[in-house]
């Protein structure tokens, strides 16, 4: 038997950690190329209009500059994501503030700001729209036509593909309605978006920079430059945070820098400063969710109608897929006998919204988990008891009709989370203490799930490929385009390979993601890396081992070629190195691969929005404790418990770090981070006026895991990265309702919002939710 220590499930140090703590890790702005120039972007100052003139102020020595306009684009003037609506550079019209119009490059970085300011653009302004409501009115059509006017995408998701029978509404004991809203949120990675591009007439375009998905940028460059993929090389440099904000946006900044490099004949570095990054790049989609729910008096969900709308901004970018994840997560971990979700992504004249950790799910889960507390109150049950009567369980079907084959135990998760947080005792204590205190304390929770991997048939379409090669020294090196941006990709993939190859963790190398050398293992998004790419690494490692098996020991050799189930394990790292060198001496090189194979039992129908939406789900219960100061009207989170079932935890320290970081972002989403738009321009595009949690703002965060290994991921792993973004906001607002008796329905919830509601006169609307008063139909309208 193997005496190899367990690597998966332990916490070896982060692969690139030493370089990071030494300050030697090289982020894009730390890199200088010989002859390198610097780039800048001239942007629209208005939200919507026709460009009437562009003038260059004579005070600037323009001959020193390279100036790129749409006319310089060799291919299509289009940044391709899912549709071709997004210009690389505006030509006749602009559709949002900060829309790129011209690009400038100069050898001296400090010569750029004055030049950008010296390009005078005049416009004929057109009426602009900034909200989902204005977009729905269709008085101004700013995108598409007919059915799709102002609408990037719609979905209709119905349980069993059937509408809700009328008699359910007629006979239900209660009908509970509610409307919930979430705001835009900035990813606020501490390293801004940035790239360096080079152009060579023969070799084509090379872009290196801060990004999540190198092959997305290859795809974008192919179109803009009209070049084959082999001539569009993309290299990820150390990336200082991403959270989705470097998923689609690098296609824009990467194309821009490459155009400047082509025209100037120099490598060009284009790195945004904070103000530009915040004003011009993508944010989380704002949302509005309307719930109408039929419930029986014993607290059973009978039917639900959910209208889910997101503001996609001016161009479609990834809105259809963000909408899709939000739609599928809208019903939560509950059993709905009947359900209809109508979802739509609307167009506004706001800079395009894009990917951000959670990808639509935090929005619809916020609405649902607030609504669940509301229904509980109407029915006269505790939030806990009401949820218990409706949880999905093993053998149940989700709203898309997916059979839950793998074990699910929300009842147990809820029991454990409430016990660990001492929920019941605290609830009682706060109820006793609050009446005599100016600080009102509360405790609340949210129960939720998050699907791992691409939605529906996405993984099948991605068709990801992973390779492992042997270096000339006989060390295995992983070749993947999956990127490290803090979440631990490098580390967990090397752990998986080490465990599979029976080698020490530090003997496994991982190549820099460079599309010139690594295959397309898919984008680093959607909580898919551990589960999907991890499994491919495991399979490619098994195949490496199978190839080396005859050389690994005389015993194995005597038994002939090994099959995967009986791969050799009884060897030392030294044996492995000898075998590897022996093989290389004979064959020159060795590279094995593994390509995604769709599990036979995963079916998804895009037409009816039904089937196996995700191969696996993580399940969670988050509990928040809050304190609301009734003299300053500020709310803070004083304690937080995050319990989740995520399959096998590959690296406990990294996993807990993911959860804690996500919870902190969730706290910011709920209580601090507000995008203030002023005529379509982000007014608070600085860290001084966009407030994210500091070390002084975070409560103790107690992270615990349950591990039920999933058959889909390497060593049983499921996804983890996005999950922690979903639960904090509703848990916090549920706790604030407990503390104050006020049912807030919108985030971010700032002190001014709390002030406004707490000082409102009773006639203006009361929050009395006595079930007797609520009557059979309880809605905002009848409250």
């Amino acid at each position, binding site marked *: 038997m193997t005496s190899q220590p367990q690597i998966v499930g332990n916490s070896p140090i982060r692969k690139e950690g030493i370089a990071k703590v030494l300050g030697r890790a090289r982020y894009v702005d730390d890199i200088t190329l010989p002859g390198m120039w610097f780039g800048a972007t001239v942007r629209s100052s208005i939200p919507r209009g026709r460009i009437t003139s562009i003038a260059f102020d004579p005070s600037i020595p323009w001959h020193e500059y390279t100036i790129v306009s749409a006319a310089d684009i060799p291919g299509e003037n289009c940044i391709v994501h899912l549709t071709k609506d997004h210009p690389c550079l505006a030509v006749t019209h602009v559709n949002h503030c900060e829309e790129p119009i011209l690009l400038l490059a100069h050898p001296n970085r400090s010569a750029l700001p004055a030049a950008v300011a010296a390009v005078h653009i005049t416009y004929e302004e057109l009426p602009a729209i900034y909200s989902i409501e204005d977009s729905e009115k269709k008085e101004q059509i700013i995108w598409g036509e007919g059915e799709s006017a102002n609408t990037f995408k719609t979905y209709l998701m119905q349980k069993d593909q059937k509408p809700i029978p009328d008699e359910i509404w007629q006979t239900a004991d209660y009908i509970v309605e509610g409307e919930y809203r979430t705001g835009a949120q900035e990813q606020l990675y501490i390293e801004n978006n940035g790239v360096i591009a080079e152009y060579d007439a023969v070799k084509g375009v090379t872009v290196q920079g801060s990004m999540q998905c190198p092959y997305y940028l290859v795809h974008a460059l192919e179109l803009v430059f009209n070049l084959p993929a082999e001539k569009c090389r993309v290299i990820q440099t150390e*990336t200082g945070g991403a959270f989705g904000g470097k998923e689609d946006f690098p296609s824009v900044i990467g194309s821009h820098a490459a155009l400047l490099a082509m025209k100037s004949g120099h490598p060009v570095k284009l790195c945004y400063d904070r103000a530009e990054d915040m004003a011009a790049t993508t944010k989380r989609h704002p949302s509005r969710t309307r719930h109408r729910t039929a419930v029986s008096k014993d607290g059973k969900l009978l039917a639900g109608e959910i209208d889910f709308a997101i503001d996609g901004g001016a161009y479609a970018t990834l809105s259809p897929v963000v909408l899709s994840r939000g739609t599928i997560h809208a019903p939560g971990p509950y059993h709905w006998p009947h359900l209809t979700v109508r979802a739509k992504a609307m167009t506004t004249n706001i800079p395009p919204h894009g990917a951000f950790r959670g990808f639509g799910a935090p929005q619809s889960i916020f609405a649902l988990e607030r609504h669940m507390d509301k229904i509980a109150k109407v029915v006269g049950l505790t939030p806990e008891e009401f949820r218990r009567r409706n949880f999905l369980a093993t053998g149940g079907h989700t709203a898309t009709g997916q059979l839950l084959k793998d074990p699910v135990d929300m009842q147990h998760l809820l029991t454990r989370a409430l016990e660990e947080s001492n929920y019941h005792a605290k609830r009682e204590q706060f109820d006793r203490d609050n009446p005599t205190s100016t600080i009102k304390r509360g405790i609340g929770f949210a129960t939720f799930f998050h699907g791992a991997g691409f939605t529906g048939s996405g993984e099948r379409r991605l068709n990801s490929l992973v390779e492992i090669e042997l270096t000339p020294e006989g060390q295995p090196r992983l070749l993947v385009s999956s990127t490290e941006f803090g979440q631990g990709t490098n580390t967990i993939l090397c752990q998986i390979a080490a465990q599979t190859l029976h080698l020490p963790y530090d003997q496994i190398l991982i190549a820099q993601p460079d599309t010139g050398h690594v295959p397309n293992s898919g984008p680093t998004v959607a909580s898919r890396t551990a589960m999907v790419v991890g499994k491919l690494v495991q399979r490619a490692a098994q195949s490496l081992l199978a190839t080396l098996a005859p050389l690994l020991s005389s015993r194995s050799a005597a038994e002939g070629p090994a099959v995967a189930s009986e791969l050799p394990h009884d060897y030392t790292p030294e044996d492995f190195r000898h075998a590897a060198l022996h093989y290389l001496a004979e064959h020159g090189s060795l590279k094995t691969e593994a390509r995604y194979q769709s599990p036979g039992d995963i079916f998804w129908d895009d037409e009816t929005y039904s089937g196996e939406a995700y191969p696996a789900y993580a399940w969670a219960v988050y509990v928040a404790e809050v304190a609301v100061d009734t003299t300053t009207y500020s709310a803070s989170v004083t304690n937080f418990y995050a319990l989740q079932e995520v399959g096998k935890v590959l690296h406990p320290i990294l996993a807990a*770090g993911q959860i804690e970081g996500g919870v902190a972002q969730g706290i910011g989403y709920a209580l601090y981070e507000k995008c203030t738009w002023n005529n379509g321009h982000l007014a608070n595009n600085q860290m001084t006026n966009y407030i994210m949690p500091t*070390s002084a703002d975070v409560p103790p965060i107690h992270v615990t895991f349950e591990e039920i290994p999933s058959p889909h991921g390497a060593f049983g792993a499921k996804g983890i990265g996005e999950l922690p973004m979903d639960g904090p906001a509703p848990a916090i607002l549920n706790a604030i309702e407990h503390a104050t008796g006020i049912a807030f329905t919108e985030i971010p919830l700032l002190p001014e919002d709390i002030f406004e509601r707490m000082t409102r006169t009773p006639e203006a609307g009361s929050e009395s939710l006595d079930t007797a008063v609520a009557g059979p139909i309880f809605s905002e309208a009848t409250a």
Partner: protein
Amino acid sequence: MTQIHFTVNGESKALEAPPMKRLLDVLREDLHLTGAKEGCGEGECGSCSVLMNGDLVNSCLVPILQAEGAQITTIEGVAITEQLHPIQQCFLENGGAQCGICTPGMILATHHLLKKYKDPSLLQIQEGLSGNLCRCTGYIRIFNAVQAAALAGVAE
């Protein structure tokens, strides 16, 4: 242009620079010490933190003329020869660095904090690091790293 003489990581340096050039840019561009990062350029994020005469400063807010004669320590000067400094080791082992962009600043802030308090309370750590933003970790593992470093008696 003005002549500047100062000491960086124990080495004396002399250079010419515009007097209002930011210390951050002099370190990164003139001295090729890229460990200090620009996260905001306005004194909010602390990713450009360095030690100047023992004080923690945001190098994006310091015009180089103010650094005349100063003793500067950057992240590149924290490790003892090729060995990790115990604070660096503790960040590494406790998961205090994720994407790593805030890490140089955090480590210098920790260095400064542990000079002030040998055995800081959690509140002192939270306040001591509140000028250094981290978007990845939620800070919890950074607190653990600081506590581990305090336990290791880093202050000496």
